[in-house]
């Protein structure tokens, strides 16, 4: 099945006057893989998607779909199916006509068209609403019609441009599960644009984190979260304690870093790390800071609890350790409760301290 990638972006670049919207972007998407383009607004993720669909002409580079270079082809000659942010359902056509629109353009005979429209509508559980007009549907239903319409042509690549951003929180969570299940069942090669990190973590096999038109990191959800490559990635995805520091000591398998205010942290070294004297950024996820640990631990400090936030399943506290402020997050059910104004012990496993350039 796999082997050659279904979609490759080769040195893709887009300039708008003096502004570089997308800067030398390259990555590949394998058959059946779901890739998320994740980044803040203006990072170039939508421009990238639109270059794949053919609505934006790249300044340089090319897009290959099934090995064929398509940068010079108009949108209607490219094998993509797109779900638009505001769905862009044809208001004058019924649900069935919307879904059958592409098949009609390709001259698929009536009987086959009807059958395929029925199948796709069944897939998104909208068979009963086939004769409704888009304006008679709820937001979630419109979203499914848009998805069905894009899937009806069985495109090589499914493109989704923030398709869940117009739904309310509850529905968004349900729809992203549904989308994931559906594209996985159809083994649909998918590129998904979002600014919602949680959406990316849930939906994607691989995440392309973008910032100012450039790729910050490409990796699986766990890799992106646990081992962010840059300060931007660490900050953009989840919460992260970031401290500026200097490498003081390098021993086999372990480093010691001293932060600006003098907090000395031991860090598990992985591969060739920074040399002594080098300036680094220390990244620690709040849930990796353990409050009131049992027994001996390498990075164990006394901390003063400054403030706390109760978030239901988890609680988040701000603590001060040797002048450095840290966020501590623990499951409300299993971790020791902290009280602002009191002191506590905290510990950080050296394996969970990341050093960023």
């Amino acid at each position, binding site marked *: 099945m796999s082997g050659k990638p279904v979609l490759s972006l080769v040195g893709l670049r887009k300039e708008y006057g003096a502004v570089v919207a997308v800067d030398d972007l390259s990555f590949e998407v394998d058959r059946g893989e779901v890739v998320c383009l994740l980044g803040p607004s203006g990072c170039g993720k939508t421009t990238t998607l639109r270059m794949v*669909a053919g*609505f934006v002409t790249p300044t340089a580079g090319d897009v290959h779909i099934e090995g064929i270079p398509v940068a010079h082809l108009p*949108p209607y000659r490219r094998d993509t199916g797109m779900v638009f942010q505001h769905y862009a*359902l044809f208001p004058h056509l019924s649900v069935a006509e919307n879904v059958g629109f592409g098949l009609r*353009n390709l001259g698929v005979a009536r009987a086959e068209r009807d059958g395929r429209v029925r199948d796709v509508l069944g897939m998104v559980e909208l068979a009963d609403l086939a004769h409704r007009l888009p304006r008679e549907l709820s937001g979630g239903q419109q979203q499914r019609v848009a998805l069905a319409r894009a899937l009806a042509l069985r495109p090589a690549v499914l493109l989704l441009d923030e398709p869940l951003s117009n739904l309310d929180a509850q529905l968004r969570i349900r729809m992203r599960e549904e989308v994931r299940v559906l594209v996985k069942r159809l083994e649909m090669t998918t590129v998904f644009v979002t600014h919602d990190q949680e959406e990316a973590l849930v939906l994607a096999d691989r995440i392309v984190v973008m910032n100012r038109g450039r790729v910050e990191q490409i990796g699986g959800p766990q890799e992106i979260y646990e081992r962010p490559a840059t300060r931007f990635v660490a900050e953009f995805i989840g919460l992260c304690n970031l401290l500026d520091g200097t490498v003081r000591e390098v021993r086999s398998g372990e480093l010691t870093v001293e932060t600006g205010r003098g907090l000395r942290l031991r860090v598990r070294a992985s591969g060739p790390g920074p040399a002594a004297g080098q300036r680094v950024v220390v990244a620690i996820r709040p849930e990796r800071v353990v409050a009131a640990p049992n027994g001996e631990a390498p990075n164990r400090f006394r901390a003063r609890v400054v403030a706390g936030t109760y978030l239901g399943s988890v609680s988040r506290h701000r603590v001060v350790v040797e002048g450095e402020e840290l966020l501590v997050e623990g499951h409300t059910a299993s971790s020791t409760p902290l009280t602002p104004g009191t002191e506590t012990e905290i510990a950080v496993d050296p394996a969970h301290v990341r050093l960023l350039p």
Partner: protein
Amino acid sequence: MERASRVAGVLVRGSVYLMLALPALIVIASSVSRTRFLTFPPQGFTLDWYGRAFRSQAFMGSLALSTELAVAATLLALAIGTPAAYAIDRHRFRGRDLFHAFVMSPMIVPLVVLAIGLLQLMTWLGFGQAFLRLLVGHVVITLPYVVRTMTASLALFDRALEEAAMNLRATPWQVVRRVTLPILLPGLLSAAVFCFVTSFGNITVSVFLARGNQVTLPVQIFTYVEHSYDPILAAVSTLVIVVTLIVIFLVERTVGLERMV
């Protein structure tokens, strides 16, 4: 209190409708009067004036001319105005604002001034054929309605729909035929109604551009009034109202008036 304001509302709306409809109702009523001059309320009842109107070469000729002219001017104004509105909406070219102001100007320039200008232009160009002269004049005065209606329709048009169509393998021609035009249709029909009614009822420009016995219906009525004042006028005017209502009815059947705005 609530009841009082509801009654007041009904009264206000009722009198507005009455004032709008009254001239037409008076004309229709007068057209059946047995008197030899126009009068309201009508005295007696006869359809004789309609018979006379239908037999009148002058009135029937100009009714035909007015109808043909209004249809032709509407089609031409749509054919020119729609692409113009499209260019104004979609492209940022040099002199775009000037161009926009220019096509809208017949709405602002007094029609008399426009008519004199057109008359002189046509004399200078040697445009002798009456229908052609009237057609050019009527296209000029109806064009702003098309441009105004269509720029409004296009501004509301979601461009993502065209992208979605292209993504679904529609060629540019298929996009226009299956998405752009059907969605703009209410706007086009509404522009068509404005054009038809404007052209069909125009006097100022027609008076200047008409030639010989080739006169439009409003001009014919206007000149007729100068020497006689019989109910045949009311009968002919009723025909004008009927033609206008037929046009509006046909459009209403196609798209529905509420969608025309």
